[in-house]
């Protein structure tokens, strides 16, 4: 009898170990996983488009409240209210807690606070020091200085982001983005992104013709180290790709003709031509006025010196700095620059595509020294 009791107790204790698992299995049994969104596609302006779509659906299905007037229609969606007005003008210092829709233009004075999303079908102007939750605009959008966007901002027209403005998430435009010093965001995407002091005059072409180093080198090139390049450290990985053991600091213009993996730092002199993809296990520094046609990837920091022109994708695991006069443009596809660390944009930068960072993208004024004639190419 005692044995039986012990056995039952033992079995009960044993089952207890698995009881939660057993119950979980009863719940799961017969079910199929549905955690994946099979229809997901990545869209850079997803937030703005999704908001517009939801709003359109609500406004087309909800009845206007009885207290609506000709100039202000009110809709109730659950606990929240939606205010719809033909045009909206807010004086300085106003706090608005409702979701707003302006069917025409929208403007507000300084230091307002919009706690919910705002949709504007016309042009939009936001005063200094104003805080917004999120903003979708069908026209042009001008954000004044020191505006705070708690989430995202999307404009169909030109988006001007004032100095010291902070955008916690994405800023997108279907036309162009102007990004002034001190402003920051997590990512910017537009057919054209520019920073202050834009100057589209082409930089003067160099008239000096010096030695050019080619990688992979030609058989008749010197087989000893020259211009920071040691041919003995270069070897083929197969498939037309090369690896370079150690740091590669080329002191003369470089012509990169094949994909290269530099297993250390990489830097090249001014007016280099990088026609193929480049990866460095540490930092990458591209000399002034170089042309980058291949993708650049590195495990460290990346610096593009003044007047570099890139037609590709830049991706450092560390920080990235795009210097004065950098241009990013290519046919068919937009270019992209994404850094895991901070991404700093100096003055007079134009990029057709995307700049983003897991940390933040920040615009700064280029130090005056860079603006002196020819000093950038020194």
């Amino acid at each position: 009898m005692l044995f039986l009791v012990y056995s039952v107790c033992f079995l009960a204790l044993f089952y207890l170990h698995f009881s939660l698992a057993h119950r979980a299995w009863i719940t799961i049994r017969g079910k199929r996983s549905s955690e994946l969104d099979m229809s997901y596609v990545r869209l850079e302006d997803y937030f703005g488009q999704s908001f517009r779509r939801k709003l359109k659906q609500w406004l087309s299905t909800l009845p206007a409240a009885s207290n609506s007037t000709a100039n202000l229609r009110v809709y109730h969606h659950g606990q929240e209210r939606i205010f719809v007005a033909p045009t909206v003008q807010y004086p300085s210092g106003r706090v608005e807690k409702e979701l707003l829709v302006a069917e025409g233009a929208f403007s507000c004075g300084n230091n307002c606070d919009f706690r919910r999303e705002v949709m504007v079908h016309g042009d939009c102007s936001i005063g200094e020091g104003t805080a917004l939750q999120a903003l979708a605009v069908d026209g042009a959008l001008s954000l004044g200085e020191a505006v705070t966007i708690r989430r995202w901002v999307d404009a169909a027209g030109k988006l001007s982001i004032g100095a010291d403005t902070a955008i916690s998430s994405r800023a997108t435009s279907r036309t162009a983005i102007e990004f002034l010093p001190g402003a920051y965001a997590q990512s910017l995407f537009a057919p054209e992104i520019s920073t202050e002091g834009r100057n589209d005059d082409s930089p003067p072409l160099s008239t000096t013709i010096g030695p050019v180093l080619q990688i992979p080198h030609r058989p008749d090139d010197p087989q000893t180290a020259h211009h920071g390049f040691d041919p003995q450290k270069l070897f083929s990985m197969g498939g037309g790709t090369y690896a370079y053991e150690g740091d590669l600091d080329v002191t003369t213009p470089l012509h990169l003709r094949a994909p290269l993996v530099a297993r250390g730092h990489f830097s090249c002199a001014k007016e280099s031509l990088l026609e193929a993809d480049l990866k460095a296990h540490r930092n990458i520094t591209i000399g002034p006025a170089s042309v980058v046609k291949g993708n650049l990837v590195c495990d460290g920091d990346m610096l593009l010196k003044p007047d570099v022109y890139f037609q590709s994708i830049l991706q450092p695991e560390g920080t990235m700095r795009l210097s004065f006069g950098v241009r990013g443009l290519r046919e068919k596809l937009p270019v992209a620059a994404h850094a895991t660390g901070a991404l700093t944009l100096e003055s007079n930068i134009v990029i057709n595509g995307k700049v983003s960072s897991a940390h933040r993208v920040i615009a700064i004024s280029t130090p005056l020294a860079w603006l002196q004639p020819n000093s950038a190419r020194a």
Partner: protein
Amino acid sequence: MAITALIIFSWTLIGIAMVVLSAYAVRHYYLAYSRMRIAHPRETNELVGFVMPRITVFIPMHNEERVARDVLQALVDCDYDWELLEVIPVNDRSTDGTRAIVDDFARRYPFIKPYHRAEGSGGKPAALVEATVNASGDIYLMFDADYVPGRAVLKMLTAPFLDPEIGAVMGRVVPHNIGDSLLSGLLSLERSAGYQSVQQARYNLGFTAQFGGTVGGVRAAALRAVGGWNPESLTEDTDLTFALLLNGWRTAYVNRAECYEEVPQDWGVRRRQLSRWVTGHTECLHNYWPDLVRARFLTRGEKWDAIFLLAMYLTAPIIVLGWLASLVLFFVPEAHAVPVLPIAMLIIGYQLFSNQATFLEIGVATLLDGTRLRALLMPLSLLNFFANTGAICNALRKFYWNRFWGSGGDGWYKTHRTRPGSDGQGFGLNQAPTGAARQSLNGLYHANNEGVGD
């Protein structure tokens, strides 16, 4: 004298088992910890859609009439530019209606170019060797016939190739049939830990991810550089991973490129699948370990990681030998002369330390995936553990037996499909409607109002 030798031998076995398994436990802890710690995992999600090389998608098929429509329709619905896309369904000597289905799709979509194979040796690697000759892409992607890729998966898988050091890429497989049997539920935990925790952690730490042969791809130039697919290997994917690694190429892992799969529902199918993996893996270990040790491209940490990965199935017989040695010591009175308490404490401590390691990985994965209910199944993983240990030991016994006598091993075994198929409607999930409008321009701006996620 013999008893003393037996005791010493048993203690030695236990010592070896404890050292080896503790080393693996430390690795498990390290990977799980690092997966949780890193705020920004290494990824290319922000660059999806900006890297658009010409790609070829291979779908090896052998008697896949039940599922062929689903995978082909899913690829048609993908948001990749059709001008840059080529799909090659590799119809490998099918005797059912696979050929007709494939040809029907080829008539309707010019980028689908079937390769019908009527003879030659069987198995996926052999079929891929032949089909690759006809491919025109710079990147080759692969999907098994029973997989249904989501609309963005092609772009996600091509993004890492912007890095010239990336030779291959691996996405994530997610079991769909989690509730079909207890085994499939437990395998979903195993897959979750394997991908969400281990693959991502290893990739974050700079180690090469493991190419799995499906929901993945390889750079055409890199494949040619290492001599193409190895038709002799039972795990051509693992073989390729290490062939690439030895030539300086890395394999990237894209956790967000998820694709549903059907995991085995019964232990017989699972045992055969595991047997193939064990044989292929161990074969790779024997083929590659000397080169891995000498490899100039690899750091010491990468070499250790690679050896640990390839030798992982050897832990099963080591565990069993440890158990047998423990039994010997338990039943031999002379062995009890040693101070029992400290040794018992040591073994209990080791058990607590080592046994929790893999559970931690599963726990981390379920936490990150937000599948808490499934995490409760963890104690039942013991069943899976015992079944796996037996199957692995048996597979290794056969492998070494065949190797010793020079006889041929097991051939390619096609994993049994259980999914009924849905005539091109995916799994009946939230797949985009057939013929969904593809994205315009660069695929980066919103082009239609169909379901989008973030």
